[in-house]
């Protein structure tokens, strides 16, 4: 059996080594051409938010500003399907304010006419999720140059880099660098797309959404620079993706402290229980003559007759 298995193993190994060398040969004969998306893609810019770190908490004023940017700018195209109006309580709004936000929301909720049974729409209630701006993906494609604007509920968790990625993307629109076009003449941004080095393949269907300072007039008087708006909406999307973040941080801290104490106590109990066990090995039983001598010496040192 060992020979059969050894044979099978060798067959696998030989084929792998053939693959290895043919792979190397192809690599050296025709090295892979460099790609514009590899050379000009940039990692997200660092972004510090108050929700970062193990003790992070939301800055509710910032979340409200971010929500304002979402409702005045992003929500024209992007849905927030997993978030309900009632969840806005987490941002510090009162029940009355939430009721008003829901009923004033620009898109109404699909419903049924109670008299005729015909499909109709009604004003949103706090218990409703945010209504999507488009009825379905086909409508979204038709209105957006054949691209579907993704839902934003989980955006921060659904992209490598999280909130920093969102912030970088929103502030990263620019003209295509001349260097790129010189090196990769075929990589010119196609019409209808927009160059953004933070996007995986560099060309994004979304036009720059935050274009000028003061695009939004913040209720709390914070100057609405493009950078500020991008930061605020990124912070807001951290909240939409992880509304229980503060509870999680608090519970985690409590659980960690509890477990640390439990571990220390259990360790002390372990030492107490094993203290005897270790000693008894040394002093009992006819062991090797060498060890008997060692045991006698140990006992003599402690002044115990034995």
């Amino acid at each position, binding site marked *: *059996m*060992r020979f059969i*298995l*050894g044979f*099978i*193993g*060798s067959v*696998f*190994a030989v*084929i*792998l*080594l053939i*693959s*290895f060398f043919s*792979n190397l040969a192809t*690599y050296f004969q025709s090295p892979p051409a460099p790609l514009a998306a590899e050379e000009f893609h940039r990692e997200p810019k660092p972004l510090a938010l108050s929700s970062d770190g*193990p003790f992070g908490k939301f800055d509710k004023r910032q979340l409200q500003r971010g929500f304002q940017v979402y409702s005045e700018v992003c929500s024209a195209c992007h849905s927030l399907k*997993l978030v309900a109006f009632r969840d806005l309580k987490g941002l510090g709004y009162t029940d009355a304010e939430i009721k008003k936000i829901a009923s004033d929301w620009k898109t109404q909720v699909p419903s049924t006419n109670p008299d005729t049974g015909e499909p109709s729409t009604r004003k949103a209630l706090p218990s409703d*999720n945010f209504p999507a701006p488009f009825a379905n993906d086909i409508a979204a494609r038709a209105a957006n140059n054949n691209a579907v604007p*993704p839902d934003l509920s*989980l955006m921060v*968790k*659904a*992209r*490598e880099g999280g909130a920093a990625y969102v912030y970088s993307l929103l502030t990263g629109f620019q003209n295509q660098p001349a260097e790129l076009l010189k090196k990769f003449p075929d990589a010119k941004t196609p019409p209808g797309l927009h160059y953004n080095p933070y996007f*995986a393949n560099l060309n994004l269907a979304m036009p720059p959404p935050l274009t000028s300072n003061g695009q939004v007039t913040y209720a709390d008087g914070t100057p609405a620079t493009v950078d500020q708006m991008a930061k605020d909406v990124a912070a807001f999307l951290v909240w939409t*993706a992880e509304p*229980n973040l503060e509870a*999680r*941080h608090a*519970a*985690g801290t409590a*659980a*960690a402290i509890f477990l640390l104490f*439990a*571990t220390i106590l*259990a360790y002390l*109990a*372990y030492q107490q*229980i*094993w203290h*005897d*066990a*270790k*000693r*008894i*090995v*040394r*002093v*009992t*039983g*006819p*062991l*090797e003559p060498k*060890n008997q001598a060692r*045991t006698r010496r*140990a*006992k003599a040192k402690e002044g*115990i007759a*034995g």
Partner: protein
Amino acid sequence: MSFSWAKPYEPKSAFMRWLDQRLPLPRMVYGAVGGGYPVPRNLNYWWNFGFLAGIFLTIQILTGIVLAMHYAATTDGAFTSVNQLIMRDVNAGWLLRYAHMNGASFFFIVIYIHIFRGLYYGSYKAPRELVWMLGMVIYLLMMATAFMGYVLPWGQMSYWGAQVITGFFSAFPLIGEPLRVWLLGGYAPDQAALTRFFSLHYLLPFVIAGVVILHIWALHIPGSGNPTGVDVKDERDTLPFHPFYTAKDGWSSLAFILLYVLVTYFAPNYLGHPDNYIPANPLATPAHIVPEWYFWPFYAILRSFTVDFILPAKLWGVLAMFMSILLMFFLPWIDRSPVRSGSYRPVFKRFFWLLVVDVVILGYVGGAPISPWRTALGQAAAAYYFLHFLVILPLVSAFETPLPLPKSITDSVLHGEEAEAAPAGQKGPRRGSVATAG
């Protein structure tokens, strides 16, 4: 069960005596994980991971049962039921879900340490072959359970992972494609696949629990192994499981669970993939389809076959991937060395650590996007994996000269821990400690 000096169960109350005469369940538990199970006294912390595996199986079953109460196994509702209902609206649903998600990862961390401990200390050798093989059965069941569990949130990686992994079967000629369609209940993962994956994901953990009982039963016949690999000779070599190993496993398990809790609460998505927060879309393939981290080494082996040599490369990859786990079942007969512990096998020890590095490299290659140099690295590492188990191990076990073994477990404890030479008993042997011989 195992040794003649194992303490018999003594009921402490009239009720327990009554129960013991009718249903000796407390007697069984006492003999399995209580004072009635003598364990070698020299176990190190690598022996704690069997106990921890039991803890994580329990965590997974408990969190999973509650999650299943809120989960909707429909292609339209699964993503929302996980990401809105459970994560936002169910009381502490976010905790259950993150504990379950990270519990799976930590279960695999524990199992991998447990398996590598077995590989190093020769735990698979006679008379524990069946313990090892049952352990491998548990591992295979865990892989199936974890894979199907990852499909349930119906995110992009769920969907495409299911597509790729069930696609393995289509590599087999003739029966492959019909088999794949039969397993999925369709031509691509859809409602039929999701419902059956949910059903099996709920079923298999209980099958695992059953095999765990067999695993422990088979272990208790010869008793636990130990770091020297020397057999237990007399009573001095052992300590009762309770209180000694409950205390030792207890504190180190709490320390490990602290690590699990830190990840679960403070970096819950670190071990996951962002794409699984995008709802499944059969029309958009993710740029890099990767399974969960615990499958990366096998994924690397699968992808390493790039040349059609007699058989298609894909079929070679699938065969090699299955073989890479199946060969573990033959390990007790591949490694012929009579010495169990790697500590006394100088040549084996070096190859063992080389294997650890090799598997880490395979894991890295399996998880990273494909590039020519990474593929080459993966191919070399995969070749070593097979050579290690199927060629090097039998040769080493035939030609290696092992170091002299200690005369007994007790002897090794005395030699190994001279620095701790303890004061002799001030109080004399305590109640509950081992009886003294001679």
